[in-house]
C-alpha cells in the first residue's frame, strides 16, 4: 500500500469531501495562497477557488462566528484555526454557540462544522503556541473531539468529521505532519467512539492519544524485550470515548497507564483514569498511573521544553515500576 504524510492525508480528505459536496468550504487565516504555515492545505485553492477556500482577516472570533452561522444556514464549513492556543479567542463561538445551537433550537438547527486545529509541544514555539487544549473542548457537551495519531487516522477521522451533522474539533499534532503511514487509495471512514488496539498484550494497558501513541508503541516494543507484554490503545476520539475497549483491556491486564500531551491536572488522563477506577476497580492490581504534560507554561528553552512532555522512556520506566511492585 502507498505511504503518504499526515499532512497529505488531511489535504486528501478535505479535497475528496469538497469534490463530493459543494456545501463544504474552508476558511481561516492563510488557508488559500499560503496553504497554512504547515502547508497542509496547499493546492486546494487552485482546485476549488477562493469562493470555497477563503482567506480571512486575522480575527478568530470573527471567522469562527461566520462559520457557525454558515453551518446553521446550510453550508458545511471547515474552520482552520492556525494554532490550538487560539481556542481561547473563540470560546463563545465554539462552546456557547456551536455546541448548544442544536439543543437550544429544540433540534431545529444543526451546526455541521469542523474546526481543525493543532496541539503539541517541542517545536520551540513557546508558551502561547505549544499548548494541547483538547481537554478544554472535550469538557463541553455538544462538541466531539477527534485526535488522529497517524496519516491513516487523520484522513478517516477528517472525512467522518466533515460528514457529521454536529460540531467536531480535530486536534492534529503539529510535529506529525511529515510522518508517513500506509493510507489506502480507496475511500474509508473511521467511526467516532471506536478505539483501536494497536498492540495487543496481557500485562499492562497503555492508553495513549495523538502524539503519545507513537511513544506508547515504542515503549511497548522496549517492554517486550523485558518480557512485559503491553497492550496499546488509541481512543482516536476522546469525545465520544470508547470506554468499553479500555475497560475490557484493563480487566484483562489489571494495570494501566494513561498518556496524553495535555496538562496532567484535570486533563484527559484524569478522566480516563477515573473511568477505569469506576468501572474496573475490582480488577486493578495497582493504582492507575498518568503521564501528561508538566503543569507549567511550555518553556521556550529547548532543554526545558523537552522535559515537559512524556516520552517512551518514561512510559517504559513507569510500566516496569508498576510490574515490579514499586508502585
Amino acid at each position, binding site marked *: 500500500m502507498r505511504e503518504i504524510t499526515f499532512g497529505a492525508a488531511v489535504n486528501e480528505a478535505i479535497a475528496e469531501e469538497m469534490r463530493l459536496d459543494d456545501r463544504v468550504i474552508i476558511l481561516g487565516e492563510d488557508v488559500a495562497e499560503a496553504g497554512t504555515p504547515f502547508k497542509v492545505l496547499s493546492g486546494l485553492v487552485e482546485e476549488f477557488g477562493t469562493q470555497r477556500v477563503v482567506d480571512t482577516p486575522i480575527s478568530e472570533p470573527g471567522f469562527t462566528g461566520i462559520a457557525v452561522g454558515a453551518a446553521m444556514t446550510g453550508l458545511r464549513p471547515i474552520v482552520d484555526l492556525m494554532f490550538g492556543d487560539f481556542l481561547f479567542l473563540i470560546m463563545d463561538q465554539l462552546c456557547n454557540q456551536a455546541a448548544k445551537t442544536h439543543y437550544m433550537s429544540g433540534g431545529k438547527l444543526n451546526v455541521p462544522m469542523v474546526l481543525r486545529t493543532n496541539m503539541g509541544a517541542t517545536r520551540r514555539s513557546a508558551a502561547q503556541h505549544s499548548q494541547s487544549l483538547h481537554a478544554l473542548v472535550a469538557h463541553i457537551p455538544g462538541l466531539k473531539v477527534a485526535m488522529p495519531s497517524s496519516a491513516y487516522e487523520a484522513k478517516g477521522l477528517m472525512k467522518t468529521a466533515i460528514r457529521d451533522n454536529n460540531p467536531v474539533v480535530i486536534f492534529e499534532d503539529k510535529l506529525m505532519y511529515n510522518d508517513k503511514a500506509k493510507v489506502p487509495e480507496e475511500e474509508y471512514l473511521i467511526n467516532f467512539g471506536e478505539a483501536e488496539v494497536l498492540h495487543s498484550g496481557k500485562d499492562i494497558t497503555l492508553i495513549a492519544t495523538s502524539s503519545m501513541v507513537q511513544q506508547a508503541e515504542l515503549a511497548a516494543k522496549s517492554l517486550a524485550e523485558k518480557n512485559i507484554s503491553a497492550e496499546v490503545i488509541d481512543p482516536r476520539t476522546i469525545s465520544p470515548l470508547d470506554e468499553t475497549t479500555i475497560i475490557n483491556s484493563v480487566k484483562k491486564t*489489571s494495570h494501566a497507564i494513561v498518556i496524553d500531551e495535555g496538562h496532567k491536572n484535570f486533563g484527559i488522563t484524569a478522566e480516563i483514569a477515573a473511568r477505569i477506577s469506576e468501572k474496573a476497580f*475490582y*480488577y*486493578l492490581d495497582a493504582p492507575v498511573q498518568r503521564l501528561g504534560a508538566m503543569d507549567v507554561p511550555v518553556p521556550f528553552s529547548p532543554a526545558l521544553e523537552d522535559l515537559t512532555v512524556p516520552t517512551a522512556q518514561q512510559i517504559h520506566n513507569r510500566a516496569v515500576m508498576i510490574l515490579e*511492585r514499586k508502585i
Partner: protein
Amino acid sequence: MAYEIIMPALGMAQETGRLVAWLKNEGDAVSKGDPLMEVETDKSTMEVEAPKDGFLVNITALANTDIPVGEVVAHIVDNLDDIPTKVMKKADLASEKTVIESDETQKQATNKGNTDNKVRLPRTVKYPNSIITGEKILASPKLRSLAAAENLDLKNLRNAGYTEPFKAADIAILKQLSVRENISLRRNATSLLDKTSFDMFLTEINSASQNLISASVVFASFISASLRITMNEVDIGINYKSGNELQSVIYNNPDKQQLGDVSPTDLEMPVLAEVNDLTFTDFIQLSGDTNSNIIFTISNFTDQLMITLDWDPNSLNQADALKLLLDVGKRIKSPLKQLL
C-alpha cells in the same frame, strides 16, 4: 406531615434574606396562596406565600433579622397535633444528626409498640482504630476480590511477614498459608481398644459365611453405622484406604447391607469420611494428605486396636466427635451386639 417553609433565594448571589415581618401568627390557619411573611433583599421586597393549606407552626425566625437562604423558618401542618417536635437550624443539622435519628427511632419504636428489634442506634461517626493506626491491610482491589471469592483472610499474609501492598500474585502464597492454617486448626482424639472380641467375631462370621468377610468391611460398616447416628446423614460414603500403598475404595452405606454382601462401589458419590486402615501395614500413625472433614486411622497393636479420629472443627464439634469415636469403639469392643 409537616411542610417546611424556608427562606427563599431571591437573587443569584444571595446568601441571606431579611425577614421584614410575619403576616400570620403561630397557629393561624392558612390557605394556599396566603402571604406568610415579607422578605427583603438588597434589590426588592416580596411576600412569601403559603404553599398549601394548613396551620402555620414552629415559627423560629424573628422579624427584622437576616436569615440564611434555605433555612427553615416555620412549618405548615395539616392539623395542630402534627407539630414536629424539634426544628433544627440548617447549620446545626450536621452536628445534631444523631439526635434527630434517635428521636425518629424512638418514635418508630413507640409506634410499633417496641416490637422492632432492629432499632437503629444513634450513629456516631468514628473511624475504626485500624485506619488511624495504619493497621489497615494494604492490598490491591484485585487481590481483595480474589481473596474474598475464596474466603481467604489477608491477615495471614501480614502475619507471615510479607511486604505490603499485597498484589494479585500473592494469592498463591495466601492459599498455601490458609491451607496450613486450616490443618493446624484440626483436632484429633485417639482411643485404644481391646481387640480380642473383634478377632473372635471375625473368625466366627467367616466360618458361617460363604464369602470371605474382611476386617475392612466390618470396620467400614461399623464406622458407617456410627456416622449415621452421630451425623444424621441419609447417604454415607466412605473412602477406605488400606494396605502399604493406601489403595482407596469407596463404600456406599455399608452398614445397610449384610456383611457378606458389602463391596466397594464404582458410583461417583460424596464422601463423608475417610478411613486409613493401617492394620496390615507397618505404620501405626499417618497424618492425612486430604482435606476430608472426618478421618479415621486404624492401626494394630499386639492385643489392641488404636483408632484415631481427626476432624475439622468447622464441620464437627468436639462433643459429637468424641461421641462418634466412642460409638465406633463400642462396636469394635462388642461386635456381636451389632448383629442382634
